[in-house]
């Protein structure tokens, strides 16, 4: 019994550790690190998906049917989308080639593209509105879209 108790305690500790690490990494915006990956022709991929890029930035979200966090992230990003910011949601399971090329490992993964269609940031897991805004700032620093007449 003592041995079983020790096993259960170890399991609880492992659960807590995984939970803490996972929660800290949820939606964490990684800027720049991904730039080397495949900042190739994202605009072409968007066109192939039948989607138009945003004039300022694009949230390219990879989702899956079995993904609850994808729904909340989609709501968050859709709320930020507008005339200059596009939110494009892709079913990862239907675009596995793109998923491999973009090195997407889990859903939701959000790739933030700048106006030129280059990847500037990405995040995996449920995104909060604050994290989404931070990602947007990484793509297009918050100066006025109309110009720099300061």
């Amino acid at each position, binding site marked *: *019994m003592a*041995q*079983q*108790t020790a*096993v*259960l305690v170890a*399991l*609880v500790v*492992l*659960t807590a550790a*995984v*939970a803490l690490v*996972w*929660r800290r990494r949820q939606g964490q915006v990684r800027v720049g690190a991904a730039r080397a990956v495949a900042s190739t022709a994202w605009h072409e991929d968007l066109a192939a998906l039948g989607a138009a890029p945003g004039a300022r930035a694009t949230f390219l979200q*990879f989702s*899956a*049917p*079995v*993904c*609850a966090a994808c*729904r*909340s992230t989609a*709501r968050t990003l859709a709320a930020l989308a507008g005339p200059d910011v596009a939110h494009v949601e892709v079913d*990862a*399971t239907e675009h*596995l080639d793109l*998923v*491999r090329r973009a090195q*997407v*490992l*889990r*859903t939701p993964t959000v790739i933030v593209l700048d106006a030129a269609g280059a990847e500037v940031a990405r995040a995996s897991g449920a995104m909060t509105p604050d994290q989404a805004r931070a990602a947007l700032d990484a793509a297009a620093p918050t100066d006025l879209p109309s110009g720099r007449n300061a």
Partner: protein
Amino acid sequence: MTSTDRPGPQTAPPAGIDPRGPRVGAGITAVLLAVVVLIGPRTEALVLLAVVALSFLPGALVGTHATWQGLLFRVLVRPRLGPPEHLEDPRPPRFAQLVGLVVTGTGVALGLGGVLAAVPWAAGIAFLAAALNATVGLCLGCELYLLGRRFRGARV
């Protein structure tokens, strides 16, 4: 208690479920699995693990609302809570039930085949997944789903 008063027009999926239901159910399941781990490699543990595995069956076939844990949530827990912030797509938790069924079912099959040592192992793995689901809403199977699809696609 199943007829809900919807808080205004919502963009939730048509047959949305209360997201707290699967998590409460996972908590109940995690407690049972912890007991299996505590019993150790014995017949009693095998019987309890079989009960847990059978409980996953309606969840995997129909959805979490069809399990007895889901019933407990609706009857005992939900009346004490406010309405959920939003409803949730029932497919992810249903997939999680399938993962739970496969893990615990493997343990039961091995146990019936005479490998009783596999019973606490399967219970331990399932406990990790259920406890993560209950505490922080992490669905381990869902996290690994895309990796599985990538792997399977690569081999074809």
